């Protein structure tokens, strides 16, 4: 029942918001609902018993409204519900048109995302997966920046194309289930699929997730979409929706097509590592701050994709830890980008400089967030990336070498960008720039606190995923039995 609450609170609040016209009221209600949801989620995190919910109301060809969670879902839901209050807060005291509709859509996105992470049934998962796309599409289309019509359509079709292949995969698996067909994950996990089928089925399933993350070469929608998206839109995309891809891969690929995973393991790792280098180099060459952050996000996500396929304990732990840390960091970064853009009126790095002189506090906060993104020790990013690289090392030393480049390269382009934004001589036109306002502290300080605290004391998150990571290990054992050479 508690899961149904978590799922429905944002949805119902979103509907209620549609009747309000006052912008401040709408935002406060949205914020209150998302905080309430966060509190309920935290109670779930700290409670000893697990909850699940199955509705008899909806039970048709293969689909059932069955909600439940394990450690992986819990991390994802924690991330979602942690970030949404901030995403809503990011809109406070800002000029926005049709506020009631915007926040209704944001909350609808939240519902869909929670649904994705809670679904215990593949078709239900798919429905929420697609459903999350629709409000985001409209958030981007109606509140986006220049060229939004073309870019949003590309984004929409690109991601939907992947999803439809996922649908094909789900129906195919549905037909394989014995007896009365079902799309329950538990039934899918027990399927024994021949290896040559798994080899092609892997890609049918993986494409949707690869596009969502995005993994090289499925990334071409990403930078233009991020660039034109509104701040809140890009926070949803980069903070949470990329994690849908990771979650989907963990849910579908490893338990259901383990032999396919083994067959394509190195291919995907190499693709991920290509993505790391490729995105980092492009990020370095960017003069547009928002695009730079977009590519840096892609570089980090690519490392996560590579680490996911290493299939060992370290990298899996690092991956799940990095899910939280990347989400928090990227949201803070995009918020910073928004602050800088508001103050300077540009995203062009060439025109910035010397902002530190007027806004010293902002410079300090940005530095902290940038440190988190670079994965400097004592920040959350370090814990995650270190574990992932340690995992890659076990697979092959060369993988670790290339993977390790993420840290180095991200230091290069992030610090270079930081230098161009904050340091140097003051530009004349930036005379009137103000420092951070209280509302903005309210946004940034908690996120930075999370980055730093998790960097020093990551244990709570590890405890959270302990059981599920070992579950994953257990799921992978049959494979090593089949292919002993791998281990």
């Amino acid at each position, binding site marked *: 029942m508690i899961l149904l609450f978590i799922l429905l609170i944002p949805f119902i609040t979103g509907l209620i918001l549609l009747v309000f016209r006052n912008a401040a009221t709408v935002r406060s209600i949205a914020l209150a609902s998302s905080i309430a949801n966060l509190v309920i989620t935290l109670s779930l995190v700290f409670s000893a018993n697990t909850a699940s919910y199955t509705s008899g109301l*909806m039970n048709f060809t293969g689909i059932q409204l069955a909600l439940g969670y394990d450690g992986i879902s819990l991390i994802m839901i924690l991330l979602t519900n942690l970030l949404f209050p901030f995403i809503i807060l990011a809109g406070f005291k800002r000029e926005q048109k049709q506020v009631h509709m915007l926040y209704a859509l944001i909350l609808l996105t939240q519902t869909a995302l929670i649904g994705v992470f809670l679904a215990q049934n593949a078709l239900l998962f798919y*429905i929420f997966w697609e459903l999350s796309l629709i409000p985001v599409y*409209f958030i981007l289309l109606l509140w986006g920046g220049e060229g939004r019509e073309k870019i949003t*359509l590309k984004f929409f079709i690109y991601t939907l194309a992947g999803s*439809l*292949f996922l*649908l094909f995969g789900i129906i195919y698996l549905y037909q394989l289930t014995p007896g009365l067909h079902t799309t329950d994950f538990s039934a899918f996990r027990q399927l024994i699929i021949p290896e040559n089928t798994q080899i092609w089925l892997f890609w049918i399933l993986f494409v949707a997730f690869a596009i969502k993350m995005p993994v090289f070469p499925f990334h071409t929608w990403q930078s233009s979409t991020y660039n034109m998206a509104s701040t809140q839109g890009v926070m949803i995309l980069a903070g949470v929706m990329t994690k849908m891809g990771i979650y989907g891969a963990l849910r579908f690929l490893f338990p259901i097509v383990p032999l396919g995973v083994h067959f394509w393991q190195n291919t995907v790792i190499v693709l991920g590592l290509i993505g790391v280098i490729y995105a980092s180099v492009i990020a370095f060459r960017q003069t547009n701050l928002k695009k730079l952050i977009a590519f840096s996000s892609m570089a980090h996500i690519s490392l996560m994709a590579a680490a996911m396929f290493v299939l060992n304990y370290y990298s899996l732990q690092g991956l799940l830890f990095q899910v939280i840390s990347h989400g928090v960091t990227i949201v803070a970064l995009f918020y910073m980008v928004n602050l800088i853009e508001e103050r300077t009126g540009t995203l062009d790095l060439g025109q910035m400089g010397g902002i530190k002189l007027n806004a010293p506090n902002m410079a300090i906060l940005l530095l902290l967030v940038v440190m988190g993104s670079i994965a400097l020790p004592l920040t959350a990013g370090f814990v995650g990336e270190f574990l992932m690289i340690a995992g890659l090392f076990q697979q092959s030393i060369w993988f670790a070498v290339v993977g390790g480049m993420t840290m180095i390269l991200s230091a290069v382009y992030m610090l270079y960008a930081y230098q161009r934004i904050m340091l140097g001589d003051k530009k004349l036109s930036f005379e009137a720039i103000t420092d951070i306002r209280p509302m903005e502290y309210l946004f940034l300080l908690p996120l930075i606190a999370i980055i730093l605290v998790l960097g020093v004391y990551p244990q709570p998150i590890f405890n959270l995923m302990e059981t599920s990571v070992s579950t994953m290990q257990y799921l992978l054992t049959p494979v090593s039995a089949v292919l002993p050479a791998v281990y």
Partner: protein
Amino acid sequence: MSALILTTVLGIILLYLGFAKNKTLLAPVAISGLLVTVYLSLKDWGLNSTHFHNMVVFDNFSIAFNVSMIIITILIFVFGIDYYKMMDQHVAEQYALMIFALVGAYMMTSFSNLIMLFLGIEILSIPLYILAGGKKSSYRSNEASFKYFLLGSFATAFFLFGIALVYGASASFYLPEIKTYIAQFNGNLPPMLLIGLLFIILGVAFKVAAAPFHFWTPDVYEGAPTLVTAFMATVVKTAGFAAFYRLLGIGLLPLPLPLEKALWVMTGLSLLIGNLAALKQSNFKRLFAYSSIAHSGFIMLAMLSQHDSSASVLLYYTFVYSLATIPMFIIFILVKRESNGQEQISAFRGLFKEKPWIAVFATILLMSLAGIPLTAGFIAKYQVFVLSIGQGYLWISIFAIIMAIVGVYYYFFVVREIFTEGEHAKPIVVTTINASLIIICGVAVVVLGIFAWNLLV
């Protein structure tokens, strides 16, 4: 049977009402008459009544399809109240002709004899030839009528020829007898029978606008008055597929190999041509014409992969498709009126700004047509894929999925226009009836998508 008689009488009553020159009476009479017909049809549920020496069989299949078509016609009539207000002449004939076409549609869902199928197709088609030319002064409308009539006559001629050949071979018009006759050849049909069957299928394929017999569709859809286009896209298609299903089910299954191949080619071509050609359209009616060809492809995919269990999918798909298509045409009429009769997709520009609620529901309807989850259109496509993948037709399923992606693309062209800023020459006027019906259809599409997955129990 009583439903069929009442509908015929209703058409004649409407014609006579035309003499009274009182337009306000027409819609209420037609709608209440059809509601009674729904009741009469449902009364026959489960009886399997046969008439005219077993030439028509009103089984549950045909009743379900008839009721679905009557509901769709009622929807069209309710929307028509506003539409026909502008027209001063021959309104009664419009209503009467649609009702007559509906009678033909009944026969197409309930035949068990080739002659009955032929009569049904003709009774359906002839009113449509007239209706397509409804705008007498419009060049386009005349062209549509003429084109439809000419090509339709060709198709009918082929169809009749096919019946004659099959009769020549099997000495029967009754499909069950033809089926036993075919069965004795074990798939190696004599050429005369084979060609006859092929011609019969061709005649029906023409009606459902399956490629490569689709060439009339875009021109006729574009030229015909929009409400007639809506009727053609929904009721005629539903009737055509019901006839197709019956023809295969009681007459031809298991399909002889050459016929099966021909039908698969038709499915593939419909999916390909419908979707790819729709991409290039800037005229809304032509876009919907090509997308209706594409939908024919999906329905055929279901029908061919697993015929026995496809009846409910067929009903669901056609009903849900109709439920979304008709309000879209109405919304199109509304925006077209206020943008100087412009029929481009860009007529939708600024709809969101002017009428946000209509825009939201238009989006839901378009999402249903595109097959996005939580709408009935998704469930319809899902069920089609369950059938085709379940039978192991993996390649054509993947092909159909790629085509579904293309489908999303062009439907979202329209969505994009709705949410693009733009100005209309005059403010859009939506009457209360139209608005509430659009909302009802939108809600119905979502509710059907979440709860009612199986209409034919």
